[in-house]
C-alpha cells in the first residue's frame, strides 16, 4: 500500500507546445480510489503513464510511498496497471497471463500456482484458467487483466479506462464489482476515465482535468455541487449546468435545480418557511419559454429560453423527474424558479468561482 504524490509534474511532447500535462500537483490518500476525469486530450492518461513509468516526465517529481521514482523502471515501482485494451498476452493461457508477473519476480512454481488460483478465485475466473484470451468474452478478459494486476499485490493500482470496452449493461455491473473489489483489497488506486458516471460512482475523490491542468480535486459531491470553475461545472452533469452571462459574472444553475413553480405549489403543504430555506435562501422566479421536451423514461428534459429581466433570451435546460406529470407544450411560457442558494457565480473572464452578485 502506498500513497502517490506528484510535484509540478509536466510532460511536453513537442518543444514549444503546451504541455500534455502541466505542473500537476496531486496527492492520493492511503487505500484511496482516486479518479482522473477529463475529456480526451486532457492529459489524464499521460499523467497515469508517467506514474506507471511508461512515459518520462519533462519536469517535476513522482513519489510513490514517499520515494521519488522518476528514475525507476516500471518494474521497480511495484505498480500494476490495467490497460484500456487489457493488453493480455494472446499466446498465453489465462493462467500463463496471471502468473507472468510472478515469473518475472522469480517466484517458484508451487507458490505461483497458489497465488494465481487465489487471484482467479477473487475474480471468479477459476474455470477459465486454460483458455486463450481470444476465447474469452470482453467481461472475462477484463477480469483476467484485473487478476493479472492483483496477483502480486502491488503497492499501487493504475487503471486506464478499463470498462470502456464493455457494453453498456455489463459496464454497470462491472463498475460495481470493481468498486467492491477495490474496497476489499484496499490498494491505492488511480483510475482514468472520461465517463463522469464512473467517476462519480466509484471515486473516493475525483480529479477533474482539462488541457493538462487539474481543474478541481474533491469528492464526487464537492466537484458536482461546488464546481471550481465553468469547465468543471459544464463537464459534470448531463445535461450540463446552465451558464448565463450577466455583466462581469456568469451565473450557473443545474438543470435539476430549475423547476416549474407549479412543482413548488404541489408542495404547498410544507411549512411556508421552506420557501425561505435558510440554507438555500429564497427562490428566484424565472419565465421559461419551452421549445421542446425530451422524454427519457425516468426523467424529462425541457429545452427553451428564458424571458424577461437580465436573463432575457438566454437558452436554458430544465430536468425533472417523470413523476412530475405537468404537460409543457412547445412554445408555451411557464413560471419556473431556482433556489437562490443553488445559483453559482463565476468570473466571466477567468471562469473561476466568485462571490454572488445581485441579480436584479
Amino acid at each position, binding site marked *: 500500500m502506498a500513497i502517490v504524490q506528484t510535484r509540478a509534474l509536466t510532460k511536453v511532447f513537442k518543444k514549444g507546445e503546451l504541455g500534455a500535462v502541466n505542473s500537476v500537483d496531486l496527492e492520493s490518500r492511503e487505500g484511496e480510489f482516486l479518479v482522473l476525469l477529463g475529456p480526451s486530450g486532457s492529459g489524464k492518461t499521460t499523467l497515469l503513464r508517467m506514474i506507471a513509468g*511508461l512515459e518520462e516526465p519533462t519536469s517535476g517529481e513522482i513519489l510513490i510511498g514517499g520515494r521519488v521514482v522518476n528514475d525507476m523502471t*516500471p*518494474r521497480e515501482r511495484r505498480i*500494476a496497471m490495467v490497460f484500456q485494451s487489457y493488453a493480455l498476452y*494472446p499466446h498465453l493461457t489465462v493462467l500463463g497471463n496471471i502468473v507472468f508477473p510472478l515469473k*518475472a519476480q522469480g517466484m517458484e512454481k508451487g507458490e505461483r500456482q497458489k497465488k494465481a488460483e487465489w487471484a482467479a478465485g477473487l475474480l471468479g475466473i477459476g474455470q477459465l484458467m486454460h483458455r486463450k484470451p481470444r476465447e474469452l468474452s470482453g467481461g472475462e478478459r477484463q477480469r483476467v487483466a484485473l487478476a493479472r494486476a492483483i496477483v502480486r499485490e502491488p503497492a499501487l493500482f493504475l487503471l486506464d479506462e478499463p470498462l470502456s470496452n464493455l457494453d453498456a449493461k455489463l459496464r454497470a455491473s462491472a463498475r460495481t464489482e470493481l468498486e467492491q473489489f477495490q474496497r476489499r483489497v484496499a490498494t491505492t488506486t488511480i483510475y482514468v476515465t472520461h465517463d463522469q458516471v464512473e467517476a462519480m460512482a466509484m471515486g473516493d475523490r475525483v480529479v477533474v482535468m482539462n488541457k493538462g491542468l487539474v481543474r478541481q480535486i474533491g469528492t464526487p459531491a464537492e466537484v458536482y455541487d461546488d464546481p471550481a470553475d465553468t469547465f468543471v461545472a459544464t463537464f459534470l452533469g448531463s445535461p450540463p449546468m446552465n451558464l448565463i452571462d450577466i455583466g462581469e459574472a456568469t451565473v450557473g444553475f443545474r438543470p435539476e435545480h430549475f423547476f416549474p413553480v407549479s412543482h413548488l405549489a404541489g408542495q404547498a403543504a410544507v411549512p411556508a418557511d421552506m420557501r425561505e430555506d435558510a440554507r438555500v435562501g429564497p427562490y428566484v422566479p424565472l419565465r421559461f419559454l419551452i421549445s421542446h421536451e425530451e422524454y427519457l423514461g425516468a426523467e424529462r428534459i425541457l429545452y427553451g429560453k428564458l424571458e424577461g429581466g437580465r436573463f432575457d433570451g438566454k437558452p436554458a435546460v430544465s430536468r425533472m423527474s417523470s413523476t412530475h406529470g405537468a404537460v409543457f407544450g412547445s412554445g408555451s411560457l411557464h413560471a419556473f424558479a431556482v433556489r437562490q442558494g443553488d445559483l453559482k457565480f463565476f468570473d466571466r473572464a477567468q471562469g473561476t468561482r466568485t462571490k454572488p452578485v445581485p441579480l436584479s
Partner: protein
Amino acid sequence: MSALGRQRWLGPAMFLPAILYVVALVGVPFVLAFLYSVGDVKVGSVGYHFVGLANFKSVLQSPTFLRSLRNSFVFTIASQILVLLGANILAMALKNVFPGRRFVRFLILLPWVAPVSIGSIGWKWILDSLYSVINWVLIRFHLVNQFSPPMYLGEPKLAMISVILVHTWHMLPFATVIILAGWTAIPKDIPEAAAVDGARFFRKLFQIELPMMLPIINVAVLFGVIFTFTDMTVVYILTRGGPYDTTQVLPSQAFFTGILGSDLAEGAAISLFLVPLLVVVAWLMLRSAHRAEVT
C-alpha cells in the same frame, strides 16, 4: 451474352494466365526434368532411351554429389540462422524512432534491391586473392602475414564461410522487412504491460514479443530456406563451387553437370533431389500461413 454467362467465363478467363504461367514455366520443366532423369539425354543428343534409375545410382555413387548435398544443408541452415539473428537485431533497432531512420532503412534494403550478380561481383573483389581490400587493410595494420594473407575464396573452409556470409548479406534485408512488419503488428500496449508486470528486456523479448511474432518469423524462415536451397548465384559467381568442389551445392552442381558438363540426364537427377525438401517446406509454409489467418 447474358450477365450470368459473362460471369461464368470472366472468372476462368482472368485465371487462365496464371495457370498457363505455372504450367509452362513450372509444370513442363518439372516433367521434363523427371523424364531426363530417367533417360540418357545429353546436350545435342536426339534420341531418348529409358534407363531407369541408372542416373540416380551414378549420382549417389559420386562423392561430389554427397558433398554438395551436405553443403546445401550447411549453406542453408547456417545462412538462415545468421539471417534470423541479424534480421531480428536489425528490426529491433529499426523499429525505434531516431533521426535518419528512413535513410538507414533504405540502406539496409539495398542488398535486396541490387541484383545478386552485381552484389556478388562486388564481394568477389572484396574477397579476391590478390586485390582483397580486407587483406589490404589487415596487412596495413600488420594483422596478417603480408606474404601469405588468407585466401578467402581459395581455402575450403574460408570459401564456405565466405559464400555463407555473402548469401546472408543478400538475404538479410528481406527477412528484416518481414520481421519489422511483424514487430509493428504487436499492439504497443502489450510490451508495455509486460514492462509494468516486471519483465525486463530479455523476458519481454523471448516470452512475449518473439512468441507473438512466431507465425511471421516462420514465413520469413520458410521463404529464406526456399530461396537459399535453390539458389546458386552466389556460389557460381564467388567460387564456381571450388576449391575442389568444396563449396558446391545441389543447384550449382546440377548446373555444372547438366548444362556445362552437357550431361542433362544426370543434372536433372541431381536437381530432383531438391524436390522432397521443397515439398516439405512448401507444406509447412501453407500450414503456417493458414494458422496466421486463423489467429
